[in-house]
């Protein structure tokens, strides 16, 4: 039994998905996805379950055959190669460790299948990288979830794939361990320099780890960019609410005037810098992140240049690092406001009248379906950036 020939010539180059589509019957799981994932980057595919992110990953791994489109590694289309012929390895969501093989043999599996005889040193080095020295002779069932996860990682990494695919690899771990592993994964990726494609539904995980995040929804990429860029200036209402939360107020815009786009919302006039407007005409959502809103007692306390909305505090939740308020506006929507607990801010009781104000440079304009209302999300337990 000779080794399976696996193409691993020259540095692979970027991973590109070109018009990649997968249909199951009438259901389109992945719809004409186009993506370029630069070599050596840590890339996250973020989306709710059923958005097509795992199907995309499985097509890159070769476990699912695309209905149409290409998976290009450098200039080579690998979309129709059998999975065992691809220079791509996967860390599975369930880890899928071989229960009948010990940890050493699990990690050595890929090397052995390629006919490499002297695997001992490489396996030991890989076990050291994932901090599992001395665990070689144990069986997977004797390891904790976090340890199994690291074995799965070592088992994939040892093959020096050109692309490493991670399918929600931290989903089964508890919060503390997940945090540790996020840092670990990031460290290892920097160390080995392999392209990581990480599929997750956890927006915080995507933001902490990835250089570039693609937000997927209904089989399509909604937005792609650096985590901070996506967070600060989302492209669609879906992204604005999937990545963190947003107060989206229904408004009408009538075209840019100079550097600003004036809008009318619920009878009041606001403006947003033209550079932060995805559209400048017609129905729009005026968006402001809850932590960019500040509460004061009356309109005359609003700093110069800030815009404001008045309302009544309908809920106040003290969560330690911040207080999360809901402010009911005159037209009935409830805006989320996160007030950092820095000691200087005034506290508001439920029922108190208050004014929320914001710097227009922190607001953004998104396209809105005609007829769509305000979208303000309820306060979650763990909003982005507030978790300790």
């Amino acid at each position, binding site marked *: *039994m000779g*080794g*399976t020939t*696996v193409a691993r010539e020259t540095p692979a180059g970027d991973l590109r998905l070109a018009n990649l589509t997968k249909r199951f019957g009438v259901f389109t799981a992945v719809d004409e996805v186009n993506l370029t994932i630069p070599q050596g980057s840590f890339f996250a595919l973020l989306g709710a379950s059923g958005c097509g992110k795992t199907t995309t990953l499985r097509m890159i*791994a*070769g*476990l699912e055959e695309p209905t149409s489109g290409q998976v290009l590694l450098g200039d080579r289309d690998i979309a129709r190669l*059998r*999975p*065992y012929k691809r220079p*791509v*390895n*996967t860390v*599975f969501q*369930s880890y*899928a*460790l*071989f*229960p*009948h093989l010990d940890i050493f043999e699990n990690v050595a*599996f*890929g090397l052995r*299948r*390629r006919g490499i005889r002297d695997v001992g040193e490489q396996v030991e080095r890989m076990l050291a990288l994932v901090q599992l020295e001395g665990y070689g002779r144990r069986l997977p069932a004797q390891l904790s979830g976090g340890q199994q996860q690291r074995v799965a990682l070592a*088992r*994939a990494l040892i*093959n020096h794939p050109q692309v490493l695919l991670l399918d929600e690899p931290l989903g089964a771990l508890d919060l503390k361990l997940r945090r540790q592993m996020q840092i670990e994964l990031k460290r290892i990726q920097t160390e080995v320099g392999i392209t990581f494609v990480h599929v997750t539904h956890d927006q915080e995980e995507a933001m902490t780890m990835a250089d570039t995040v693609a937000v997927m929804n209904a089989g399509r990429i909604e937005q792609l960019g650096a985590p901070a860029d996506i967070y600060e200036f989302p492209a669609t209402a879906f992204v604005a609410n999937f990545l963190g939360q947003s107060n989206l107020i229904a408004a009408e815009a009538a075209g840019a005037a100079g550097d600003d786009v004036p809008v009318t919302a619920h009878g009041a006039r606001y403006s947003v810098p033209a550079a932060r407007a995805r559209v400048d005409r017609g129905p729009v959502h005026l968006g402001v992140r809850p932590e960019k809103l500040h509460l004061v007692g009356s309109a005359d306390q609003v700093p110069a240049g800030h815009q404001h909305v008045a309302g009544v505090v309908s809920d106040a939740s003290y969560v330690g690092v911040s207080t999360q308020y809901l402010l009911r506006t005159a037209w009935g929507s409830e805006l989320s406001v996160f007030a950092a607990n820095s000691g200087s801010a005034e506290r508001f009781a439920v029922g108190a009248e208050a004014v929320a104000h914001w710097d227009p440079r922190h607001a953004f304009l998104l396209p809105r379906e005609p007829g769509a209302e305000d979208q303000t999300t309820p306060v979650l337990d763990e909003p982005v950036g507030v978790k300790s």
Partner: protein
Amino acid sequence: MSALAHVPTGQSTGAKPPPAARRGRYRALPYLLLLPGGGWLLLFFALPLLQLAAASLYDPGGSLATGYAMTWAFGNYPDALAAYWPHFLRSFGYAGLALVLALLMGYPLAYAIAQKAGRWKNLLLVCVVAPMFTSFLVRTLAWKTILSDNGWVVGLLRDVHLLGPDGRLLATPFAVVLGLTYNFLPFLVLPLYASLERLDPRLLEAASDLYASPVRAFRRVTLPLSMPGLVAGTLLFFIPASGDYINAELLGTPNEYMIGNVIDSAFLVRLDYPQGAALSFLLMAAILAVVFGYLRRAGTEDVL
């Protein structure tokens, strides 16, 4: 027997047993529950086995009419082996061949039912077990009809010249092996199915992702993980098949007779009890030797 000795301790202390004795009675409960089964085994397995062992050492010169004398005739064993060793070889040969055929059919079948059948799974399982609803004898007789010289199978094979004009299927080693394969197939398929049903298909994806071609994924993942079922199934197939006598009796001729037929005739036709008993113990010993050798090789002693 020590199990029974515990029982009276709680009862012999009179009408009002002290707490310690009462606890003793509860301790005896599991042994009490063992009584019916243990008694049954003792009466209908252990005692007859002892009787058979004794019979195998009777004076071979005796007969049913004149009675047998216990002469500790250990010579019965070498005598029986010398007379019938070809039947032993034939038994294991036929059973082994049938096992190979059954594996070739049964493994893919069990795999398909366990992994690929989806909602048809239960129906297919019923189909595997369904023949058991008719008697072993009737099923074998049905094969006798199917394979008969005037049957359509032989006719067809003669027409396409796979069989000569006088060629036959019935009364050949082929028919006996086929009968064994057919009759014991479910005993192989069911334990295999149970093992393969637990196989997580994601492990095969992982193997494929780690450069294992389908053939290697089978060898390195599927096969080792189905080993317990494979071992159990082959034993459940091989042990009764090598001791069987119905298939050779109904589908073969005396030239195809297996050791089971010899034992059958020793007890029921020739009425040579010492020889029949000695052959029975020889068969038992041979099967145990084969099984232990096999288990040692398969490296899964833990299934026993």
